[in-house]
């Protein structure tokens, strides 16, 4: 489940070679205003994408300023008002202790987004470094690192995460790290192939033959040019990570109660499937909408936008 999006990324890696733009690292492009207008036009022609951007913006806002959306306490409710179905007063209804579910989902965004970002950051940094070193140094280092990556890939991601959770223990951050490490391999692979591609590009060869130091070649040419696909992968990975993190917290390895992590909310709601459908259904919808939105944006970054340019 957590690997479902890797197809697109591997395509990004092995697909037809992208033109390399030697100027990306330095010049900001032809005029900001034109760029902005073009982005707007691009978005307006794609209402689905616009909605996706909106959803992601809302989720990000909720995780940094939950107060914008609700003033209710996510941890404290009026116990006599428990199991109220969704209404204008409680948009998502209330839970078994009378807590406002909407407020819990909003405040849960912070925990879930934090975990997601940690997971992607771990995968991005560790995987990116592995790929960079392998691609740049080459020779036996490349062989060793890539064999290691092959091994990581041969263990189903969730199983690797579960093994890590067994070793590290429970909690939001630990789950995030476990998910991140389990997706290191994909990043390493993409980063390596990008580095290889850029390395062989004419201008890199040229600057090397001009006697530039390896680190300056790396910093000025290789990194900026190789970063693009890796960043796209990171956006794609966001959706995957949200799902993986929520699956682990659904299984009970996340933060202890009363923390309203999204997966935990659904897991707790299971006890009241018969009498309070909203406790499972609505947090699930929020997760699905968020993942759908990040995936849509990633797809746009990956394909449509670059094609339009």
């Amino acid at each position: 489940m957590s690997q479902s999006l890797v197809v697109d990324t591997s395509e990004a890696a092995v697909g037809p070679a992208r033109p390399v733009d030697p100027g990306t690292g330095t010049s900001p492009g032809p005029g900001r205003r034109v760029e902005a207008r073009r982005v707007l036009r691009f978005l307006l022609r794609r209402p689905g994408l616009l909605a996706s951007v909106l959803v992601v913006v809302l989720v990000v806002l909720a995780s940094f300023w939950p107060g914008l959306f609700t003033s209710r306490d996510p941890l404290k409710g009026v116990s006599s008002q428990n199991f109220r179905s969704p209404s204008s007063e409680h948009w998502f209804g209330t839970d078994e202790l009378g807590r406002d579910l909407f407020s819990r989902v909003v405040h849960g965004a912070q925990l879930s987004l934090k975990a997601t970002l940690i997971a992607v950051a771990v995968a991005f940094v560790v995987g990116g470094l592995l790929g960079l070193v392998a691609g740049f140094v080459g020779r036996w280092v490349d062989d060793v690192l890539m064999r290691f990556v092959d091994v990581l890939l041969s263990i189903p991601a969730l199983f690797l995460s579960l093994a890590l959770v067994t070793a590290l223990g429970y909690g939001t951050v630990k789950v995030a790290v476990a998910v991140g490490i389990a997706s290191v391999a994909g990043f390493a692979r993409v980063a390596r192939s990008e580095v290889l591609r850029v390395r062989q590009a004419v201008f890199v060869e040229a600057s090397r033959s001009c006697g530039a130091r390896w680190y300056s070649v790396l910093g000025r040419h290789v990194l900026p040019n190789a970063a693009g696909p890796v960043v796209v992968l990171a956006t794609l990975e966001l959706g995957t990570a949200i799902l993986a993190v929520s699956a682990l917290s659904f299984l009970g390895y996340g933060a202890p109660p009363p923390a309203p992590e999204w997966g935990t909310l659904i897991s707790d709601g299971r006890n009241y499937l018969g009498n309070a459908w909203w406790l499972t259904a609505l947090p699930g919808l929020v997760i699905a909408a968020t993942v759908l939105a990040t995936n849509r944006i990633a797809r746009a970054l990956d394909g449509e936008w670059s094609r339009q340019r």
Partner: protein
Amino acid sequence: MTAHPDSRSSRWAALAALLTTSLLLTACGSSSGESANGTGQATSGGTLTFAVGSDSGCVDPQQVGSNDTIYSVRQVVDSLTDQDPETGKIVPWLAKSWDVSSDATTFTFHLRSGVTFSDGSPLTAQVVKENFDAVPKLGALGILAQGYLSGVASTTAVDKLTVRVKFKEPNAQFLQATSTHSLGIESSASVKKTPQQKCSQGVAGSGPFVLKQYVQNRSITLAKRSGYDWGSSLWSKKGEAYLDKLVFKVVPEAGVRAGSLQSGQVDAISSVGKANEATLKGGQVTLQRRANPGVVFGLGLNNSRPILKDTKVRQAIRYAIDRQQIADTVFPTGTQPATSVLAHTTPDYENLSSDLSYDAAKAKSLLDSAGWKAGGDGIRSKNGTKLSLTVKWFTNAATNQPALELIQQQLKSVGIDLVLKELQITQIAQVNQSGDFDGLWGNVTRADPDILRSSYSTKLANWYRVPASELDSVLAQQAATTDAAKRKQLVGEAQKLIVQNAHTVPVVELQTQLGVSKKVHNLDFDASSRIQLHDTWIG
């Protein structure tokens, strides 16, 4: 010495008067709702599918302490005696009669003849002796049995069917203990297995059902014992059970259990909380309730922890809990907030509701005077230490998590941080032994106040690390006295000491609530609010 059947009733009546005083158990046997019991013609055969929430990881009745598993393993063994859930009286089962010495130190049981275990071996005095010799050796693994046989001097097989148990000191609770599943009699071959083997492979008992299959965390399957003919004197059907097969399935989510009962996938479910009552009411389901005697649900505090050594802190916790709110929000309708450490249906219970009132202001002032000052985040601290406690709990009842989250909220409002740590019920022995907790959420069901001694005497397991005090001698005396009035006074004294010093924080009484399909008849509670399925039939 042989028992004369005629002298039996007078003997045990006298004994009951001697040992158990003011048995209030009648008051608690209120099965709610319209009971479908007794309608129609009872028919043999069929399978009862019973969904429970957890698995203790063990199918040895002598070791199991969690109701979800007791429901099934209870059916595999018989006990020497049985306890009438209506009157609390001890009545014959495998023992057709017994004598108790006037100082309650010597118990002589006269066994029924012709009883066999499911492995074919006969019930003899020697087998009973082997059982009673083995149970104390279980130690902490015999979660409930611990204490039942403490202070035993010797068990001897007087003749083939007469067994005598001698205690070093008077032991008033022992007769009731022989009626529990924890002292259920297992075959000689089973007793000789290691505790682990008994847990994973099960045991051969003489009960109305036989263990067919046990798959950990998933299911326990029992089959009718053919030729069974030595049922408890309380049961209405003579001979074999009605049902052919019992299947206990582990379904952890209360909501899924409730839904499956409604949709007919299962015939009965355990642990129905308040949340699912409305869904289940009416239709094809009857809700059966019965208050459990024994130690109420509460926070068992680890009295040896630095923060909790201070009586004021423990008392503050006691005052900070709004028991009525918890009982009303989470637990089955009719659940009573705790008014003592013992449930009101336990013999010699004493109402201490004034000590267990909800008074947040008092809690705060106690914490203030103990030096715990309010901090910026609402959590108190003292010398840089946060007033934060870790409470461990087990996933064996649907009501546990919401109850604890409510307690967490209530304590937070007086400045105490509660960290909840969820464990599997299989880990209970380990947690008890290690003492690695600040608080432990749980209860102990037993229809005898001696459960206080098992739970809080420093002479026994002392899981809550209570410091030695006069409580020990009070608990020892109540166990030793044969004077009913004296025992009542001593048990009352013990309750006061425990509650007033807040060695534990009582919260609510456990009221067992089962959801049972209307096609199931005579699914009856026993004296400990667990179930007997010998008389149960489907039709």
